[in-house]
């Protein structure tokens, strides 16, 4: 993997298409001719569009702005290095097994974009459609998942309701006869799976850069200049950048950045943790979610088991988690797969989530002209990366949401059009 280097020169990039031929040619040169895969340009004083936040969503937005809407001059400004936020911290699960009519088409479009992504951006993101299996442990849960599966199929999404024997054939190591939470079956989405998260950031960065997008790292936005109700520039640690349009994609820090323009958001920032075990031989063939506690698991190609659970539960910008949640997640894991108790946990880390108040995202214009918002992804925005960028680009370029993100409105909280998929966000204020 070629990492970005501070010595890269403008123009030294983007001439290289990855293929079997390029690999062979490079290997004959002793792999000495690889070049940095994106430029490190100095910020220019003005752009058509400035995207704040170089996570998955910011980078994909810039890419689709250039590709789908032909916008010529775009910058992505990132306060740290790209991929340092949640795009590089998540547990990499992608799926479109939603129930709400606003969510299914959006997440399904995202899954379709994932399916074509590697060809589109000429980058190996290790998209692995190994299946996502949601378990049920009671008749009521089975009925709820059957309903969800039917809603998915009505929207053209793949879903299979499995009984206990079918789940046992798929994943024999689960504790089927657990005294409190016996496994009765599961809802499988075969097209769901995992994607290598850093490769998503790097791949979109390279693809955006090759279309002329300036990716400006170590550049924190510290102010948003609003004149006569219109956002006209961002102030940054590397100078002032004027822009005709400004898009915010600052997952976890959305409240703080929006506050620079005087906006108050229906969002709390919370920490979510992830955990990795020591590497072992193949044990978990797909992504499995426990239906009786907040726990889900998959296995990386290196062999480590990757698992996650709930947010810690109080406002935090600490990017590290608290120990009670570690214990809680391990307990869930051992209830589902008792043999996990024999493993050592290698690492855990945290990322800061925008917890929106109904658990659903926002991709919309704001009351300030020229200022657009992509926020509130809670614990599930990685799978949305392609579609969120695609829809946000549309919203910015056309000054109106696409049909796919029309429900993800900022004003839905005052208008009463909450998206009732999860029923609760940071706090169960819905009553």
């Amino acid at each position, binding site marked *: 993997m070629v990492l970005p280097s501070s010595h890269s020169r403008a123009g030294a990039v983007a001439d290289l298409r990855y293929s079997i031929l390029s690999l062979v040619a490079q290997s004959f040169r002793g792999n000495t001719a690889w070049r940095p895969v994106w430029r490190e340009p100095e910020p220019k004083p003005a752009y058509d569009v400035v995207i704040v936040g170089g996570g998955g969503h910011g980078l994909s937005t810039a890419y689709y702005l250039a590709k789908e809407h032909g916008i010529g001059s775009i910058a992505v400004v990132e306060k740290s290095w790209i991929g340092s936020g949640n795009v590089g911290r998540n547990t990499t699960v992608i799926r479109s097994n939603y129930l709400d009519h606003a969510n299914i088409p959006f997440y399904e479009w995202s899954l379709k974009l994932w399916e074509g992504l590697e060809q589109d951006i000429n980058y190996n993101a290790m998209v692995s459609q190994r299946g996502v299996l949601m378990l049920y442990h009671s008749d009521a849960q089975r009925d709820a998942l059957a309903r969800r599966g039917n809603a998915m199929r009505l929207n053209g999404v793949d879903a299979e309701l499995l009984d206990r024997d079918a789940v046992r054939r798929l994943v024999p190591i689960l504790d089927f006869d657990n005294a409190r939470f016996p496994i009765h079956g599961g809802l499988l989405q075969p097209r769901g799976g995992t994607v290598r998260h850093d490769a998503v950031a790097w791949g979109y960065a390279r693809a955006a850069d090759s279309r002329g997008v300036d990716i400006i790292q170590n550049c924190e936005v510290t102010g948003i200049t609003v004149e006569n109700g219109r956002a006209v520039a961002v102030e940054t640690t590397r100078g002032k950048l004027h822009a005709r349009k400004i898009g915010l994609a600052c997952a976890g820090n959305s*409240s703080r950045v929006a506050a620079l323009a005087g906006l108050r958001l*229906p*969002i709390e920032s919370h920490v979510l943790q992830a955990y990795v075990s020591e590497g072992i031989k193949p044990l978990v063939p797909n992504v499995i979610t426990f239906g009786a506690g907040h726990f889900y698991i998959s296995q990386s190609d290196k062999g480590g088991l990757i698992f996650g659970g709930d947010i810690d*539960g109080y*406002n935090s910008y*600490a990017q590290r988690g608290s120990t009670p949640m570690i214990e809680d997640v391990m307990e869930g894991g051992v209830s589902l797969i008792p043999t996990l108790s024999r493993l050592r946990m290698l690492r855990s880390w945290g990322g800061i989530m925008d917890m929106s108040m109904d658990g659903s995202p926002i991709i919309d214009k704001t009351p300030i002209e020229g200022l657009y918002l992509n926020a509130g992804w809670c614990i599930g925005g990685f799978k949305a990366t392609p579609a969120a960028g695609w829809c946000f680009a549309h919203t910015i370029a056309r000054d109106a949401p696409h049909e796919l993100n029309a429900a993800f409105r900022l004003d839905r909280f005052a208008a009463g059009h909450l998206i009732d998929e999860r029923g609760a966000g940071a706090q169960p204020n819905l009553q």
Partner: protein
Amino acid sequence: MLLIPCPYCGPRPEIEFRYAGQAHVARAADPSALSDAEWAQFLYLRDNPRGRHAERWRHTNGCGRFFNCIRDTLTDKIAATYRIGETPPDLAAGAEARR
């Protein structure tokens, strides 16, 4: 693990508590007089600072009471806890964490 000083019971481990969001968000005396925007503000809009935050906790597995707490959301340091109805301590003046 946070060590949270309950104003009634003293310092106890985090697992005895439940978080209850931003403190001092007053419910309007006459909710039906509010506009939709004002009601949404009460229900959904929060300060969400990176730094000192006045927040409510409930000592669910202890005395069961709600109280207020001033915690730094970046360092997790708790500067003070105080009872519901009390005014927030003046931290700038160097008030000590109380119990």
